[in-house]
């Protein structure tokens, strides 16, 4: 395996010189399944891996995957350490002010509460991941927000009774709830936050943005994007 990898990188090096402009680095977090995660082989995997690879193929770009901490994912894009953010990032006005988004490749997602009991107090202590739109929403809802560094820890906080509920992307919570043997359940109403998930790009990279927009549109048109959504999120998820 290592040898094959080495061979391909050497190959990439050789051809890369000719087409230097076309190597696009995709930055992701690698800790947000099923959107993106590091699989057991140590590589980026998940919905966004499939989408990203397909988009690059359609736009005829050579792509490379990079992982970066969520906290500094935008500053590093602007610093040029990678060219595209593909990390389950919701399109929000705040972010639109500093970076550009492609059209969404995942429909506006619902966020939901998960708790141990159906009568959990959603105005009590609610866990969320630090610096996400969900954390901001909980703070505004009047509940006491308990912020954790990773989404994992926020779910763990509900399990051990630290928080009454956790508020996060429904698609992230769904498999966890499904596999908890009835311990965890969805409570309260779903909330629509953000304008769907899009690729984040530098404002000056208009050409690249156009290429990706065309590629996303073509995937939407021939239904391959819906197929990928269904593959990773199950048949009940909202599609295009």
């Amino acid at each position, binding site marked *: 395996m290592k040898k094959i990898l080495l061979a391909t*990188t*050497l190959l*990439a*090096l050789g051809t*890369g*010189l000719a*087409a*230097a*402009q076309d*190597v696009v*680095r995709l930055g992701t977090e*690698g*800790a947000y*399944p*099923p959107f993106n*995660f*590091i*699989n*057991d*082989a*140590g*590589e980026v995997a*998940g919905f966004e891996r499939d989408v990203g690879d397909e988009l690059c193929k359609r736009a005829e770009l050579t792509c*490379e995957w*990079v992982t*970066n*901490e969520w906290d*500094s994912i935008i*500053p*590093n894009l*602007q*610093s*040029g*350490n990678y*060219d595209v953010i593909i990390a389950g990032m919701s399109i929000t006005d705040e972010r639109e002010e*500093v970076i550009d988004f492609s059209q969404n490749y995942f429909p506006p997602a619902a966020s939901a509460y998960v708790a141990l009991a159906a009568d959990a107090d959603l105005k009590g202590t609610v866990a969320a991941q630090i610096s996400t739109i969900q954390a901001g929403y909980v703070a505004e809802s009047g509940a006491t927000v308990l912020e954790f560094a*990773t989404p*994992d820890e926020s*779910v*763990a906080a509900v*399990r051990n009774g630290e928080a009454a509920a956790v508020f996060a992307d429904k698609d992230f919570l769904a*498999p*966890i709830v499904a*596999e908890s043997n009835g311990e965890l359940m969805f409570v309260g109403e779903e909330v629509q936050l953000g304008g769907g998930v899009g690729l984040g790009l*530098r*404002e*000056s990279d208009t050409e690249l943005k156009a290429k990706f927009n065309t590629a996303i549109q073509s995937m939407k048109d021939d239904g391959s994007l819906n197929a990928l959504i269904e593959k*990773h999120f199950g048949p009940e998820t909202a599609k295009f």
Partner: protein
Amino acid sequence: MFAVCADPKAIEGLTWLSCYLTSGKHLDFYWSFVTVLLLLAVTAPAALAMGFGGAMAARSRILPLSLLGKGYAALVRGVPDIVFFLFFVIALDQGLEYLKSLAVCADHAWPWQGLEFRVCQEAKVPLGASSAFWHQAYGFALAVFTFALVFGAFAANVLYGAMNAVPKAQLETAEAYGMSHGQVFRRVLMPQMWVYALPGLSNLWMILIKATPLLFLLGVKDIVYWARELGGSKTQAYEYPHPDWRLWYFLGLLVFYLCFTKVSEIVLARLSARLSRGQATAAGEAMRRAGA
């Protein structure tokens, strides 16, 4: 890895565990121990060199240079290392690319446009087309430099103190024998200062060991990053689903750090004994008496 591991969800018990512990991700985890050790091995001399430079500057008779040396030590030590790491690496990266852009780019437009930093493709470090290996090596180099800068400030302080601790009379005697400044420094001060600097430096080494969990802030995937990543609960989307096992991974790290500290303590104690031999200190005197 092994043939039995082809379908992890069908196996259980010890086989499952052995497959789990040899998955690609775990191999990355084991590699990260090497990364951390390598980083320590590279950073320690680099920080020492930085500290030596800082201490020399602080002792300098040229006022601006001495202020620079003292300012460097005071400023960097006043700031918690974690805060420093959070913005310094991006700044360093941009600074390097800006300098390179002055040399290689055709147009010299100011690269900072609002929050965006833009230089021409040729000025990227490393070049956009280079392989993942170079990107990682560059990230590693940035981390080493940043660590060396922070710990160099502490080392500068220790060395500055050690240089002042060498008995003045000896230096004066050396000068009376007609040695030049440089000769006094090389022949009298340098060989003796280490014994005074060692306690401070060994503590610094210990601090350095324990600062390695901050590496993940610098973009280097260290043992704590992988322990967190591997230990977190895994759904069926993964090949090896399991509940939250972070506790076990962190206990493992705890043992690693304790052992590493212990070994370091033993080695440093020996080094200290070696350096004290023949020195005009209490420890050196005790050794002389024991030998006589």
